[in-house]
């Protein structure tokens, strides 16, 4: 998946526009959590993942961003994206169980992905195979007990090939993560785990690049401080971006805004 060219502003803008277009043409909401995750996903797929590496999207509701990242790397076609969320599509609203080589597991029910990533990392170690494992979770997902089970397991086994990316956009399904569970910011809750924790701006490619390039001695967690609905100025950081699709006016305005960024 790794391409020779470094991801730059043009590639980022192009992918954001394609994501928004795809969601608009399919009449699908959930844009907020896709746009908050997109920048890191693009960089991971463009610059980090090699042929032996694995990726698991635990926050399956960001499937649109995943499909867009795969499109940006040439793993999906424009025609593929045109089928998103429509009848007879491979690109369901959450990653499918089969049909996409880059998708190891059907995700969408939160709290599964980190265990799947930890199991993958441990399996590769037991088989003496090389390969890094990257898992992206949401921040609200850390309210699932199974995610903590997985973190305990990953730390106990010192899974030094495991990278956990947390899309820390501060908003979840029906409120802010602070209001719902007093867990925000997540990184303050991780003290005591044998875990490398780094907190960065999740929309700054240089910071993401630098965090991913840092040496790793055990499992690591990179908290991406992100903005839900990033790039859509009318809904950035607002609950509406979690669910609502764009109407025609909003779409035209969004594409205009993205062009000027």
């Amino acid at each position, binding site marked *: 998946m790794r391409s020779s060219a470094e991801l730059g502003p043009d590639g980022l803008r192009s992918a954001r526009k394609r994501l928004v277009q795809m969601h608009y043409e399919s009449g699908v909401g959930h844009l907020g959590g896709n746009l908050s995750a997109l920048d890191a996903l693009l960089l991971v797929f463009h610059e980090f993942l090699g042929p032996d590496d694995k990726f698991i999207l635990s926050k399956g509701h960001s499937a649109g961003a995943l499909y867009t990242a795969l499109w940006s790397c040439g793993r999906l076609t424009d025609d593929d994206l045109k089928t998103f969320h429509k009848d007879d599509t491979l690109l369901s609203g959450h990653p499918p169980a089969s049909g996409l080589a880059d998708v190891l597991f059907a995700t969408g029910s939160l709290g599964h992905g980190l265990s799947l990533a930890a199991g*993958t990392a441990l*399996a590769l170690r037991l088989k003496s195979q090389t390969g890094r494992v990257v898992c992206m979770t949401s921040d609200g997902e850390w309210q699932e007990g199974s995610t903590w089970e997985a973190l305990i*397991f990953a730390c106990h086994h010192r899974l030094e090939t495991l990278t956990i990316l947390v899309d820390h956009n501060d908003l979840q399904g029906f409120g802010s993560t602070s209001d719902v569970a007093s867990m925000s910011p997540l990184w303050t809750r991780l003290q005591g785990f044998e875990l490398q924790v780094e907190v960065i701006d999740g929309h700054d490619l240089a910071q993401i690049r630098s965090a991913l390039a840092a040496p790793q001695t055990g499992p690591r967690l990179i908290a991406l401080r992100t903005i839900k609905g990033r790039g859509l100025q009318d809904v950035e950081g607002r609950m509406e971006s979690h669910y609502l699709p764009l109407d025609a006016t909003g779409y035209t305005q969004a594409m205009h805004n993205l062009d000027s960024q």
Partner: protein
Amino acid sequence: MRKQLCDALIERSARPDMVFLTGDLGFMALEPLQAAMGERFINAGVAEQNMISVSAAMARQSLDVWVYSIAPFVYARPFEQIRNDIGFHNLPVKLIGNGGGYGYGVMGATHHAIDDYGALLTLPNLRAFIPVFDEDVAAVVQVAGDCGAPAYLRMGRGEPPSDFEVPAYAPWRHLLEGGGPVVIAVGPLAGTYIAALRALDPAVRPSLWAVAELPLAHAPIPEALLAQIGSADRLCIAEEHVEQGGFASMLLLDLARRGLAPPRFTHLCARSHTFERYGSQAFLRARSGLDPAALLAALELA
């Protein structure tokens, strides 16, 4: 069956791709397996949801993965992980549940597994193995291990009379000949009936069958049994499982599709998740009407 299970898994562990995960259970039983497997024996801790997803991921990387806990903990808590991560992807993880049915009798309702294979067989690709006798375990480990699909192994305790010659393992076995009604029992329960039925006059004695694999799509009803059902005046199913989703429903649906309808039907099953008083597996079987005396009474043979 734990001794036989441990021995069978040790033999299988000669395969370098085998991995065994336990949910912090197996003390005083699985230590020999732990010693044999080294780092491939993983105590995943008291965290069944994580353990199941980890097992799925390992199977996705082509490892031969076995998961162990007591029966109620291996399927109920991580049910969604079994469905999404194992079942949706048809990953050949083997889930071993020790003490199925009322096996952990006096330990209480939280430790019973009387809705296990019914629930699991609603999931895609899942199979269930319910060994009848201790002697079945080695064969079940081999058959389940090589079936290429996710499977649940409900382990119990074989209870045939000491002088009974256990027939070689098969999904279906005819344990006793008789001219009376047809009785099909699921798993070890079949062994508990042998002594009582063997004492009856052959003319009225039930014809006793044991089934050890489900669903029927993978373990079709033998023609000889179908012939007996077709000519008998009564069919009786006995299973240590609740009525809903149980083997009886599966069998009757199969028979209905064949146009076979037994004139009389009796179903002995687990009657309750909770009781006012608890006791051994035998005690709770008796409370549920699953003991040999209850079988004879239900068939009007007492």
